[in-house]
Each structure stands twice: as C-alpha cells, then as structure tokens.
C-alpha cells in the first residue's frame, strides 16, 4: 500500500522514468536488430567467421553489466555519462542472442529447400529474402524476444551511469535502504519484462507458423 501511495505522489516522475526505460530498451533492441540480423546472415555466408564472431559476442555477454557500463564511460564517442553510453552497452548485450538466432534460424532451413531454390535459379539475395529469412523468421524473432527481455532487466543498471530509467528508484532505494523505493523500480521493470515476453512470444508463434 505504501507503494500505491508512493506512485500517487510521484506519478509524473514514475511515468518519466518508465518512458526513459522504454526508450533505452527500444532503441538498443532496434539497433541490435539492425546490426545483429545482417551479421547473422553474413555468418551463414562466411562460415569461417562464425567461431570468432559468436565467441566475441559470448565474451561480451560474460562481462558483468555494471562493469561494462563503467568501462564505457571513459571511451570517446561511445562513452560518457548518460543514455547514449547505456544504449551502447545494451546493444552489446542484445547482439549475441540476435546474431546467434539469425544464424541458427537460417542454417536450420531444410537443405533440400535451399537446393531447390538455387537449382531453380534464385540469386543468393532472392534465396535469402524469399526463402531463408521467411522460414527462419520464427527463430530470429525468438532471439529478439530474449534480447528484449534481458534488456529490460539490464537497463535498470543504466541508472548507475546517469541514463535514467526505472533503475533510478532501485539505486535510490538501495542507498537509503527503502524497500518501497526498490519495489517502485523493480516491480514495473519485472512487469515490463513479462509483458514484452508475452507480446513478442505471441508474434513469434505467428511467424513460426509461416
């Protein structure tokens, strides 16, 4: 009940932070798709690059998020304090599931279908856009879903480098040992993750049926 009273008193601020959170996750996921899907496609064309690229993405994934945010601060262009740095870090985390699922989704297309397409005289681009991406879309989208859900959680830490978002309440709550404040940030973040998961999961199932 304390929580409801808190939201009642701080509605404007809470919605502002929620908005920032959505922007952080939305922008970083979109960027990660824009980079990750072409990269995943490239790996299916250059199998030798698969090990190094996925390995590197894996290594990034293992860096503790708070540390990664910290590492980025001193960097020129990408770094500094604020939302831009946070988005860069979130993109780095979102890349692995998206690249990997794009690669897996496209490699998973029935080889007979691919051979038929090439044998019929599709160019590589036509094979990709007419056959491989449509058939791999369900798996590719599953990667986007995972990236989004993880992003919602990781974005709470972005508050540590002044990027705003729901993490602001959590950090403030932790430093003042105030459970209500922590909940005020954590609960909507968790709900957001659940909603994103459900919504994107629904889209994914529709695409998978293709």
């Amino acid at each position, binding site marked *: 009940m304390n929580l409801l009273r808190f939201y009642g008193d701080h509605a404007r601020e809470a919605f502002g932070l929620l908005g920032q959170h959505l922007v952080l996750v939305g922008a970083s996921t979109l960027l990660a798709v824009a980079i990750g899907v072409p990269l995943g496609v490239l790996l299916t064309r250059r199998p030798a690059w698969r090990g190094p690229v996925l390995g590197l993405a894996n290594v990034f994934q293992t860096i503790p998020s708070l540390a990664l945010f910290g590492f980025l601060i001193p960097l020129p262009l990408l770094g500094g304090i604020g939302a831009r740095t946070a988005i860069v870090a979130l993109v780095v985390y979102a890349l692995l599931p998206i690249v990997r699922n794009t690669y897996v989704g496209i490699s998973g297309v*029935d080889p*007979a*279908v*691919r*051979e*038929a*397409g*090439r*044998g*019929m*005289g*599709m*160019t590589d681009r*036509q094979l990709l856009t*007419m*056959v491989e991406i*449509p*058939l791999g879309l369900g798996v590719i989208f599953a990667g986007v879903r995972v990236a989004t859900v993880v992003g919602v959680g990781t974005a709470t830490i972005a508050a540590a480098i002044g990027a705003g978002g729901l993490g602001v309440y959590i950090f403030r709550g932790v430093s003042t040992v105030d459970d209500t404040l922590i909940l005020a940030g954590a609960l909507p973040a968790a709900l957001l993750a659940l909603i994103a998961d459900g919504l994107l999961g629904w889209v994914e199932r529709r695409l998978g049926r*293709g």
Partner: protein
Amino acid sequence: MSYRLPGNGKREALVSDVTFTVGAGETLVLLGRSGSGKTTTLKLINRLLEPTGGEVRLQGEATTTLEPHRLRRRIGYVIQEIGLFPHFTVAQNVGLVPRLEGWAPDRIAARVRELLTLVGLAPDDFAARSPRALSGGQRQRVGVARALAADPPLLLLDEPFGALDPITRVELQREFRALEGRLGKGMVFVTHDVREGLLLGTRLGLMHEGRLAFLGTPEEFRRSSDPQVKQFMEAA
C-alpha cells in the same frame, strides 16, 4: 567433362571424362551405385558445381556464357527431397521461375493451371493448398510441374521417385513415361533403379567410379556383356 574437389589435385576426380549429348524428346538415364558420380554429373550441368575440366553446352551454347542463376532458370530441376517451399502455396511453388523471370501475374496463373492439369492435379482443388497438405506423390507432381514452369529445353531429375512408396512410384513412372513423349524436352534422369531406367530411358548411361562405363539404348543395355552392366541387370 570432369570434376575434382577444389584444391584437391591429388585425390581421384569425382567425375572424369564423362561425355554425352541429350537431344530434344530424349531421356538419358544415368544409372549407378551410390557415390558413382550420377548426382555430381547432374549438378555440373546446371552449375550447382562448376566443372574443373571440359564443357557443358545447352542448345549449342557453353553454360559458362550465362550467369549461373540465368542458366538454371532455363533448366528444370527435380530432386528426390522435392524441396517445395513450405511457406508458398502450390501455385506459388509452381509459378516461381516465371515470377523470377518477371512474367505478368495472369500469365503465371494461366501457366500454373495448365501445368497442374498436366501433372494430374485439379487446379481448383490444389492451387491454393499448402505443400504440407499434400501426399508424397502429390508433392512430387508439384515438383515436376514447378520444374516445367518456364518451359525449359532441358530437365534434370535426381531420383525424383526414389522416396515414394512402391505403388505411388509405379503410378508416377507410368505417367512420366506418357509425359516424356508429349513434352519433347531433353531430360537427364538419375536413378539407381534399373527397372525404372529401362522403363523411362531412351538411352542409359551407367556410371562407375566417376566414369561413364556404358552408354546405349535399353536394348543394348540388356544385351551388354560389360561386367558392371551385368551386375546391374542381375540385380533387377
């Protein structure tokens, strides 16, 4: 023509010194055991594999004068696994090459109806179906219709009836035999089934270890004293 694995000068060639011609209305059956180079030979024709020696000519023109995808649109291709696009309808599958070639939609639709009828599938019943809703035999009918769509002068068939149940296989073989004469196309038909080869081929080529061990009419094949051919005849 011949074919070696790239960067592998020392190992034996997968296909060597294979020479044949296929005229319009003629079906050349390539027989042979697994690994004898039948499928490789087929893929050398439509450049899914590039010959490392020799030349392939389509209607007098070297296949290397065209870009591979342009060449392949002029050569029908049917494989055992069929490879229908599961996210396309039957009509979209059959109309694929015409669509790639930029035909007008109504011309494609008319051609699709004509071809479905030709392979014994009622267009009104089948055009809008998903490949998933077809039996194996129906799928391969669609596969054959798709290969014929842009009226290519040459058709390559790689064990097209190999995965079908025996009854459906015989049914399709019989219909295919009737179709061969009407279409007047050159065909290269790969199989390891001698009976199928004798039934459908105007000529038979027997491949052994990458070479063409025998080439002749079914009658010559039956009477041949070649040890490889005899082995095959005994198996039939």
